[in-house]
């Protein structure tokens, strides 16, 4: 379970912890969307802001990077695929413009993941849920409380299911199932085990929720915007303003 420590809530009293969850969620939504359109100035400003937030929230930049090391391997793979070109021959060729484009793409992905990890590690699931209820309330035909509860469950379940997937993978390797040639056989075994264990975990969760008399009309967490949120929004607007720079 140590591998999924940071991608879950870490209690603290930093400014990032004290920010209203609505501010954090709106900023992550807006900034991660802007990442796809942002140039070097925007990405540079955002990188500095994220680094400062990581240091300020006591999570630490190095620890943050270490905890997403598996994602970094994936990112390296994406970079290689995007940077290499195969011309007429079979030998891969490096083109400077393509390497720059690949670096920019990977930079964007990394920032989006770091923002999400910071949001999850500094916001309790209950606060994420309350912020979602607030954001979904104006939408017609949406049961905002149920939807927010379900998103909250995803935040809790994804690290656990990833951990289970690793365990199943190890168990399959120890039984030489990964040596089987048929991808269909391996996919079937892995998926059936993963779904079975996830469903059993779901049953435990249902029992726990019923034992605590769960219903949709629970008392919501009280949220209040403060001056700190105004400062954070101001910094967000400043970072967004760099979108217009080349």
């Amino acid at each position, binding site marked *: 379970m140590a591998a999924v420590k940071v991608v879950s809530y870490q209690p603290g009293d930093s400014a990032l912890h004290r920010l209203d969850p609505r501010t954090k969620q709106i900023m992550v939504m807006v900034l991660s969307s802007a990442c796809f359109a942002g140039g070097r100035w925007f990405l540079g400003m955002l990188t500095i802001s994220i680094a400062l937030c990581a240091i300020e929230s006591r999570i630490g930049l190095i620890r943050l990077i270490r905890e997403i090391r598996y994602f970094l391997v*994936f990112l390296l793979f994406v970079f290689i695929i995007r940077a290499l070109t195969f011309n007429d021959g079979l030998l891969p060729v490096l083109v400077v413009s393509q390497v720059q484009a690949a670096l920019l793409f990977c930079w964007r992905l990394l920032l989006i993941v770091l923002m999400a990890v910071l949001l999850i590690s500094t916001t309790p699931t209950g606060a994420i849920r309350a912020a*979602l209820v607030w954001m979904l309330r104006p939408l017609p035909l949406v049961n905002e409380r149920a939807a927010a509860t379900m998103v909250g*469950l995803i935040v809790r379940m994804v690290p656990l299911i990833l951990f289970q997937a690793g365990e199943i993978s190890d168990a399959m390797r120890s039984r030489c199932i990964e040596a089987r040639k048929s991808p*269909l056989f391996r996919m*079937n075994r892995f*998926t059936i085990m993963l779904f079975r264990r996830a469903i059993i975990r779901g049953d435990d969760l249902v029992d726990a929720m019923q034992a605590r008399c769960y219903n949709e009309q629970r008392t919501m967490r009280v949220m209040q915007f403060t001056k700190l949120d105004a400062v954070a929004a101001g910094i967000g607007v400043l970072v967004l303003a760099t979108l217009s720079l080349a």
Partner: protein
Amino acid sequence: MDASTRKLRLMVYSSIMASLMAVGAYIAIPVGPVPIVLQNLFVMLAALLLGGRWGLISVCVYLLAGAVGLPVFAGGTGGLGKFVGPTGGYLIGFAIAAWLIGTISEKGRGNIFIDAAAMLIGTMVIYAIGVCWLKVVTDMSFAKAFSVGALPFLLGDVIKIVAAASIARALRPMIAERLMVPRTT
């Protein structure tokens, strides 16, 4: 089992399916602008196991989690920007496909051939919306968009459909027992 317990169980199972979709999205092989992921296998399984309505809810919750910035989309990304990016059409296609697969499969009462046909239709819907959206966003020709956004993945999708049909057959009794649903063929 009373109605509220059944609803709660379905709600939790839908969240778990959405979490599995997110986990499936991490296992990605990037090729061109659209990565090959296990995500669509898990979308099809959610629809087959939970039916049209809850399969759709499960995908919608997954999309909502991604829209608010949680790293649940392919390659661990998230944010509203993904919906207007090159892969946005596939994401919308997932929701429609889940409803179609679940609804057709429910009518087929667990028949493996009807399940396979439902998944084939669902996959076609995902590609129809995804490729058209890719064409619009990247300004490619339709042939180019199809060759980049659909063609490389078709063989993998056939394997996923065959796998999903047998996996659903193995898991259905477990779900049916928990939801007190009458057993199908």
